[in-house]
């Protein structure tokens, strides 16, 4: 990757991670118009950052760090996003599932519920759950987030329990 022009690097990154960035923007912003703006901001931040890509980490780590950092910067600058309203994985597991008792209404419903759950989380927990959902392993997640692989593993254990508890039935019924 080193030595490639900025535009070429960007096109490569956008082709490989464009869909993941789209999902990431949805996890940070619920409003569709603002989400579109956030996605554009993330792509702009990525394109600008790639001018100084120096191969100190993989392109994947670079892309996810830029995207999460740009999105975190966005949410903490939004006055309406009150940090006190964010909760951690521990607290979200203790909350009642708003969809409990409802008939699972298909795949779209499960994804919407999952998005709502993620949008409540503190940025760090949000980054870990998104990395897990994107299929990144603990080492890659640790490199992106800056927490140790051991701590990532603990958080992933909690995430798996939470997902099993909240979504297993919905996904199975949808199939």
């Amino acid at each position, binding site marked *: 990757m080193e030595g490639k022009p900025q535009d070429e690097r960007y096109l490569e990154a956008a082709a490989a991670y464009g869909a993941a960035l789209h*999902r990431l923007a949805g996890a940070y912003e619920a409003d569709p118009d603002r989400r579109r703006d956030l996605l554009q901001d993330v792509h702009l931040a990525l394109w600008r950052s790639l001018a100084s890509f120096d191969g*100190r980490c993989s392109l994947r780590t670079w892309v996810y760090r830029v995207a999460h950092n740009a999105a975190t910067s966005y949410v*903490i600058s939004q006055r309406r996003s009150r940090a006190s309203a964010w909760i951690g994985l521990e607290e979200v597991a203790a909350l009642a599932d708003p969809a409990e008792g409802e008939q699972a209404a298909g795949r779209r419903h499960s994804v919407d519920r999952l998005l709502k759950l993620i949008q409540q989380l503190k940025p760090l927990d949000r980054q870990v759950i998104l990395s897990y959902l994107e299929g990144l392993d603990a080492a890659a997640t640790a490199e992106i987030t*800056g*927490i140790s*692989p051991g701590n990532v593993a603990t958080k992933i254990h909690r995430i798996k329990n939470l997902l099993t508890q909240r979504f*297993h039935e919905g*996904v199975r019924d949808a199939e």
Partner: protein
Amino acid sequence: MPNDDIRNLWQAQGSADAPLTLEELRKKGAKFRTTIARRNLREYAAVALMVPYFSYFAWTARLPLMRVGNGLLAAALLYMAYQLHRRASASPAHGELAWQSCLAFHRAQLERQRDALSGIWSWYLGPLIPGFATITIAIAIPLFHRSIAAGLSSFLWIVLPAIVLWQVARINKGAAAKIQRQIDELEAAESNANSGARE
């Protein structure tokens, strides 16, 4: 496996299409730079206009205290311009978003916000106070010679803004304390992570 199902479901959504073409990215990048440059220019232009204005009165005012007050205001504006320049130069580099982990970046952002709130007194509003106070005293002294009531009334010009500034300081202090609590939480998460790694 249930969690693979939800991961597959998650990964099945989202469009891979880039929301902007390269041309649009270049235009947005240029617009971003222009916006920052214009903002800085506006602030420097305000200083460039006000410094000669106060300097003129520092040179020509009849009362010595008035000269001192205007001189202090001109000096305060130059100091603010220097601080603005220093802070604008310290804005994040393009690659900073990728060089720092999410935890480190989040903490740095919060620290920047906290310092901006607490620093407003040390470099933005605070330096103007001695100049304004000196000018108010310079206005009040001749009024006191006329009548005590007239002299005291001139102090309203400093008391009322002082109350407003005190309220601003209180709100800023509260906001900075809230941000500090978030920083403490992140630091606790970081130290838990390190102790977890050692176990």
